[in-house]
Structures are given as structure tokens and as C-alpha cells.
């Protein structure tokens, strides 16, 4: 069991977490936008998350917290 949490208001929508997730379970929220005006990243299948923190290590804005 693992989980990823996004401090959504800090996200700049760069998509690097999406690119580097080995399980390909992240995406940019298609409709929702944050106060900065970006579509924030979100997890669409938390069951598959292995808690590897690849997403968090590549996030330039330190948006992501990972638990395992």
C-alpha cells in the first residue's frame, strides 16, 4: 500500500511527475485548475502506486508527499 498527495496550489502543471511515474498512473487534471491557473497533476489509480517517489524527486516545485 502506498499513497501520493499533491499540494495542488503549488503545482505548475509541468507534467514531469506524469512522465517519470513508472506505473503511469498520474495525469494532469483535465478540467480543474488551481489558483495559479494550471491544471494540477493528479493520481488516477492509487491502488497501483508503489511509493517509489520518482514523481516527487522530479517535481521542481516539491508538490508531492509520498507514503508507503
Amino acid at each position, binding site marked *: 500500500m502506498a499513497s501520493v498527495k499533491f499540494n495542488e496550489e503549488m503545482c*505548475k502543471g509541468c*507534467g*514531469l511527475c506524469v512522465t517519470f511515474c513508472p506505473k503511469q498512473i498520474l495525469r494532469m487534471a483535465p478540467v480543474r485548475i488551481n489558483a495559479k491557473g494550471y491544471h494540477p497533476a493528479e493520481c488516477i489509480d492509487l491502488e497501483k502506486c508503489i511509493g517509489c517517489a*520518482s514523481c516527487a524527486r522530479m517535481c*521542481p516545485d*516539491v508538490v508531492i*508527499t509520498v*507514503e508507503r
Partner: protein
Amino acid sequence: MAVVFQKTSMLTDAPFHYCPGCTHGIIHRLVAEVLDELGVGETAIGVAPVGCAVFAYNYFNCDMMEAAHGRAPACATGAKRVHPDKVVFTYQGDGDLASIGAAEIVHAAARGEKITTIFVNNAIYGMTGGQMAPTSLPGQITTTSPYGRNTEVCGFPVNMSEMLSQLNGPAYIERVSVHDVKNVVRAKQAIKKAFQAQIDGKGFSMVEVLSTCPTNWGMTPQEALKWLEENMIPQFPLGVYKEV
């Protein structure tokens, strides 16, 4: 479940002003985590540059000062000599360090000042709108080399890590990259070694980090990481250049 990754308390809550996908943010995080892990976060003194990282003083949760363009190693020298017991670092771009501040970094390194320099090389002047830097690659298109850097007229890129490693003052010099997870992890290890060399009183230490500027390179963040890997690493090979 246990937390395996969270934002370090050595970074403030201020949101980074960097462009989306700019790897300055990753490098900030690595420096902050290392200061915390070495237990020197509370007492460290950082010197911010002129360049995109000009506001670095808002982001690190330690004493920070702002230097005039390129002069961070001179300011850090003063801070370290007054506070020899404290960890002192500079955070500088390639325009700041390799161009206007070339004299300061060379002499700080030659004197063996016990400071650590984090040198962020993105092969361009980011803050001012993407002009050619001393580190721009042959053929690289920038706003001041719209047909590509012509080495006949503009000369060749300056490899700072190789140059400084020829001096006797430096104790640790390594060049790393942050273009994927494995390299980000390696970059952190290098930064830790560099700060440890300072703590051990061995001399000057520097980590050159190859970094992206998606905005001025005119690329997506993903394309920029790939461009760094394919074009910058051949010109700026990764590795340890000095270890005493």
C-alpha cells in the same frame, strides 16, 4: 504507512517563482535536504546570485544574503572568515559564475576558501531573456546567437569544473545532472560530499549541476531534459574532477 518523501523543513513555504518544469527547483530541494541531513541547516549561511535564482534567499530556511552579479564567492569568503564554524555556500548560475564572476570563483577556489558552491549550468542567461552564455554550446541558438553560436566569432564553451580542478585550493569538484531520477539521486550524493568536504575543513568545494531552461530553450520541460542529456553531457561530461 510511513512517509517516504516530504518537503524538507529547510525550504520555506514560499512558492518558487521559477518557470514550470525548470530544474532550479529540484536543485534547491537537494541543497536544502543535504543541509538538513548534515545537521547544519540551522546555522548555514547561503549567498544568492544575480540570475533566475536571485530570490533564493526567500526559499532556504537559513541565513541568506544577496551578492552583486558574480560576487557570491567574495561575499561567502567574508562570511566564512568571520564565522569559520558555520557552513557557507553560494548558489550561482553559469552567467553569474562563468562570465561576470569568473575572477571571483577562480580566486576563491585558488585560495581554497572553505565554502561550497552550487553551480547551476543551464547553458544560457535565463533571467535576462535567453542570451548566449560562456557555457552555451557550439551552434546553440540563443537570442544573441540567432543563427547558432559561431565558435569563429564567439569562441568555445567554458568547462568550469575541469578548469577549477587544476588548482590546488579545491578539495572536491563534481559535475552532475538532474535529467532523470537516477541522476537526481546522484546529484544529491555529490552535494552532500561537497558540503562534507567543507565541514571537514578540506578546502573549496563545488558541484556543477547541469540544469534546464525550458522557457529560453523554447522547449517543453520534457524536451528540455532530453536536450540536456543528449547535447550538454557530451560537452560537459559528468564525474568527479577533484577529490582530496
